[in-house]
């Protein structure tokens, strides 16, 4: 049984989006996810890392492996101290964007993962936690 592992990286530059994808891919691969799930997880992480960089300028990505009796999971937390989101239901709507993008980042990332939790306070920042589970 593998020990619980965790780590973190800072999101400071646009290049860190690529770094985050590599880190997340490694974590998901090591946890034993198949290629399609790894692709889902990496793609969700790519959307959320870009959001941190675009909207807040900087933030932190934390990850950890979760091991329960019946399943293993990977959890990623994206935390920033940016402008925050005033209207979360609106931000979760497909096609809503304030950056000229497609508005798929948040709702898309939610669909690709098993769990999606968002906490945000205007002026304070945003924290998003995503989790993917796999049966043992």
């Amino acid at each position, binding site marked *: 049984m593998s020990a619980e592992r965790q780590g973190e990286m800072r999101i400071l530059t*646009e*290049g860190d*989006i*690529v770094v985050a*994808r*590599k880190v997340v891919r490694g974590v998901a691969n090591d946890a034993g996810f198949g*290629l*399609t799930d*790894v*692709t*889902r997880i*990496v*793609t969700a992480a*790519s*959307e959320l890392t*870009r959001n941190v960089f675009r909207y807040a300028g900087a933030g932190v990505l934390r990850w950890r492996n979760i091991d329960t009796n019946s399943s293993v999971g990977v959890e990623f937390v994206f935390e920033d101290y940016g402008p925050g989101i005033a209207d979360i239901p609106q931000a979760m709507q*497909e096609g809503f964007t304030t950056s000229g*993008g*497609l508005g*798929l*980042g948040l*709702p*898309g*990332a939610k*669909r*690709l993962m098993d769990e999606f939790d968002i906490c945000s306070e205007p002026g304070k920042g945003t924290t998003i936690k995503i989790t993917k589970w796999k049966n043992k």
Partner: protein
Amino acid sequence: MTHDRILVIKVRDVLMVTMPADPDDATVGELQEQVLGALDHHRANGLVLDISAVDTLDSFFARMVAETSEMVALMGSQTVVAGMRPSVAITATQLGLDLGNAKTALDVDCALDLLNAMPGGGSK
């Protein structure tokens, strides 16, 4: 940090554009100018965008591909996106991505056949 570049070559009358496996946003952002410049320079009849090496297609990447395809159409040419991996296709659909007016093909061979079948396109 080194990062892989977009490769653009002309084969017969077609532009072959190959995306690296994991391009950063700046590289993806260069796609439009690089492709449109090459299209103008080589007077190509069509464009194959080979994404067979790409293992993550997120919404930014997809938007750049869709916009490039629209710009190529405005210049009177056509884009075929070739070689999307199964895992990428599954993820793109769940994410809700589409590639605008770009046609798609299983691989580069199929993409060339598709361009040949289009009016005014192809490698003849």
